[in-house]
């Protein structure tokens, strides 16, 4: 996926690093720290440059890609009254939060682990503004509102001005369009300031290859001091090779509430990163009875679609579909064997609760250039090592594939399965790509 969310802290750090290049004339203090425990926060406060942690009132909140932290009561800004949070309070609060699981209003749940701590910034509602940019359709769109904070999303159409900026628009035209669309309710004395900040914001968003960038609210204080109170950002990670030095080491965390990847998924992801081929695995339902090993991205989708359709139509459910993934782009024999080993290992860990057979779908469309016989060699090697386990779980194998050398591939895998006493049916391009799902699941 090209667009990847980054932490609020990393987004702010990028602002800070580039501040003088884009926002000279304004000032931004970048007083933020990212910690994973109270102890780490206390230790940070002893470091040079972070004295403010002990001197100022603080705000602490989780920095884990999800929004609406205020509504979820996950922003610590007061103990008794706003602006009285001390370092010790913040450390204690963090330690409390990491000690149990948290459920958000959306139903996502998990354990909080990353927190951003900043100084409390006293300001009035009038000083809060909203600004964001993203790509809609083919164009960039800049959104601006005189009203920042949580309420902007309610009454979005009335409160927010949009500026559509086509990819080939000149800077002069862009600046003109931004100026012409500054929200009318921005006070006269702040208007010029907001204009130049908005223009710089858009250039920063564009040049840094953000896919999405939102500050809500941005607070304009006296003396051109800007406070970025809340920030959400996604980067276009395909631009990584251009932005390596500018972005620095940036982390793409997993969304909160997404169960951490299993060791098997991690192992496949690691193999994928080292290979020229594409190896992907997501475990959807570890107890599921239908396991897939599908070649190709598009084919993996239609197999998943079809398995869901037939499972539901035949008294099963989506929970029957155990995994989603693909192996493609000409993987080596050993890569294919590793992938097959992993799937078979996962498939043979649990007996099916209803005592039904396990189904292994080895599917794929007609390959453009992958040598089918070669990739099947890896699967056959895996069968040879795992045949007994597969038989214990009454595994029924269904194969469908086409492409270079497919006749040999199909013949080899059929012979191997027969020799090993495995139940197998094999089909080539004359059979519809997903029809083996029907054969496997239709009752």
């Amino acid at each position: 996926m090209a667009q990847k969310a980054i932490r609020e802290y990393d987004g702010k750090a990028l602002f800070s690093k580039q501040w003088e290049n884009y926002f000279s004339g304004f000032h931004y203090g970048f007083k933020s720290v990212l910690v994973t425990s109270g102890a780490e926060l206390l230790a940070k406060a002893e470091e040079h440059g972070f004295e403010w942690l002990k001197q100022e009132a603080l705000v602490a909140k989780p920095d884990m890609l999800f929004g609406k932290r205020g509504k979820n009561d996950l922003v610590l800004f007061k103990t008794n009254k706003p602006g009285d949070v001390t370092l010790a309070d913040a450390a204690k609060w963090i330690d409390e939060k990491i000690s149990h699981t948290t459920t958000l209003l959306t139903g996502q749940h998990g354990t909080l682990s990353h927190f951003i701590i900043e100084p409390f910034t006293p300001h009035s509602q009038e000083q809060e503004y909203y600004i964001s940019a993203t790509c809609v359709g083919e164009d960039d769109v800049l959104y601006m509102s005189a009203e920042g904070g949580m309420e902007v999303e309610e009454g979005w159409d009335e409160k927010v001005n949009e500026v559509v900026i086509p990819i080939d628009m000149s800077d002069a035209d862009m600046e003109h369009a931004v100026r012409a669309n500054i929200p009318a309710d921005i006070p006269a004395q702040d208007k010029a300031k907001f204009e130049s900040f908005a223009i710089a914001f858009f250039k920063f968003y564009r040049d840094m290859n953000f896919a999405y960038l939102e500050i809500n609210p941005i607070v304009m204080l006296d003396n051109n001091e800007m406070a970025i109170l809340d920030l959400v950002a996604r980067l276009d990670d395909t631009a990584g090779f251009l932005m390596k030095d500018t972005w620095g080491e940036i982390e793409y965390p997993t969304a909160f509430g997404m169960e951490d990847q299993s060791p098997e998924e991690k192992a496949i992801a690691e193999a994928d990163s080292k290979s020229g081929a594409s190896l992907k695995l997501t475990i959807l339902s570890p107890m599921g009875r239908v396991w897939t090993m599908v070649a190709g991205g598009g084919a993996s989708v239609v197999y998943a679609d079809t398995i869901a359709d037939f499972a539901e139509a035949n008294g099963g459910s989506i929970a029957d579909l155990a995994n989603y993934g693909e192996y493609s782009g000409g993987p080596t024999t050993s890569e294919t064997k590793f992938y097959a080993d992993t799937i078979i290992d996962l498939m043979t860990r649990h007996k099916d609760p209803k005592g039904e057979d396990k189904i292994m779908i080895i599917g794929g469309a007609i390959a453009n250039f992958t040598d089918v016989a070669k990739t099947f060699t890896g699967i056959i090697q895996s069968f040879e090592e795992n045949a007994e386990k597969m038989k214990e779980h009454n595994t029924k194998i269904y194969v469908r594939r086409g492409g270079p050398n497919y006749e040999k591939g199909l013949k080899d895998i059929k012979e191997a399965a027969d020799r090993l006493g495995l139940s197998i049916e094999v089909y080539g391009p004359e059979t519809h790509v997903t029809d083996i799902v029907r054969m496997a699941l239709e009752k």
Partner: protein
Amino acid sequence: MEKLYTKDTQAIFWNNNKTAIQRMLDYDYTIQRKTPSVAAIVAPTSGNKFEKFFYGPDEVMIPLYKSTAAAKKEHANADVLLNFASFRTAYDVTMEAVELGGFSSIMVTAEGIPERLARKMNNTARNAGVTVIGPATVGAIAPGAFKIANIGGTIENIVNSKLHRAGSCGLVTRSGGLFNELSNIIAINADGIAEGVAIGGDRFVGSVFIDNMLRMEKNPEVKYMVLLGEVGGTEEYKIIEAIKNGQIKKPVIAWCIGTIAKHFSTGVQFGHAGASANAEAETAAAKNSAMAEAGIYVPSSFNDLPATINKVYTDMLAAGTISEIPEPSMSLVPKVRRSKEFICTISDDRGEECTYAGFPISSVATPDTGKGIGDVISLLWFKKQYPKWATDFIETVIKTVADHGPAVSGAHNAKVTARAGKSVVESLVTGLLTIGPRFGGAIDGAAKYFKHADDNNLDPKAFLKYMKGEGVPIPGIGHRIKSLKNPDLRVTGLMNYAAEHFPATPLLDYARTVEALTTSKKENLILNVDGTIGILMVDMWRALGYSENEINEFIESGTLNAFFIVGRSIGFIGHVLDEKRLAMPMYRHPMDDILYDVPEAEKL
């Protein structure tokens, strides 16, 4: 443009991707194209000038170029660019090609081009009227006419999926893997496709479903269309819109894959980068039902798609909207082929009579043909028919350099060897081996340095300074005894010939200004015969339309020396025969002509 490609379409292939190009040529041979679909290859880092490929049982050479501009210059008719550059350079390659102009479509295969660059690239191409296929695609095919790279897979699969000749269906998909599958389904359940495009899996692709389907609507070979969409994006709604407002009238069969996504609220990315539903309307289910409502044929599931295609096709066949397609003849690509070790591009002895660059020997040999040795040289050395003024000049040069007396080192060596009792050929090569930078080499050197000075607009003064910096006397300048007042008549002859017959002599004109400066310093620093020949050869090639690069290659490869070698061989042979005739004895150099100065070797 009603058809994306025709049987005459030729492409420039960016990146020397040999397997993919071979697959294209196998396809071309199978469908009996007149010309290979790949006209040229751009390989910026290759030092080679061509790459060999099989064309059926034979081999053909496809020229390599260092840049798209160079390839396009030589192959102006190739209006398709197959951009197989990596995601790091694909953007630059496309932008350069759009800037160059002359491309009607550009296919971009790289996956993961930065989104902002992809948008800029797609926008620039669109504004220039260039159809971009991709990025992140296996490409497109017009069966029976033109196929991009690996699309369709192996030649066996192509024939099985009826991709070797135009059928009735226009096919558009996002996925490249499923494109083959759909072609197969359409071949089994209908009569194959007339044109197919896999638009690519990235979020921002150049041409989208609607662009391709509006073109197919105009293509008379396309009778109905199949669209395979995906979860995410709103492109399918543009098709619905086009059907509603009458822009698309042909029957459309469609299915969006990714219905699975509804079962998983967040997190799992099903399919391509472009495949992620941001709103209800972008889900596969919503799009499938919206398309069905608009009158598009939408099956109940992907598994039922073949049946739907079969029904639409059968109905159209029964209604007479589609007629049976006769199967065309095909050439079979041999299973076993052997690459040739040697290549010959100048002459051919396989026919009735040996030819020189296509001309039977008898057509250039006898006087009545009007052809001379200059013509033979132009055919065998340059594979071109030079005009008479140029072949006459070549002959003049050969005659002029044929001999320069017995005292020059090459002739002396040949004579000494002959007197040692060696054969004509042994004596000749001894003389020839003397030719090099100091003997005969001034022709090469003069051409090289004077051309360099002229190319860089050095005035005579600057040129002299430059040569001083190089630490060499100017080749082609200076004679032992001749001067402006006592001119070398060979030089006068060459110059007069050129003045009368050459269309122009810019380099000679320049050299004369240099000569004016050098002779003002010393009388005998005239343009000598070597210099005049080298310089006039450059003028000849310029007048014949060769590019500066080609002329530089002639100089580098020693072509100028070759004229001297041919000419002087005549003289050397004369001297050798002279020795034989005179039956001269073994030569021993007189000792009194040698300075002996041999101190005893020092002990170390």
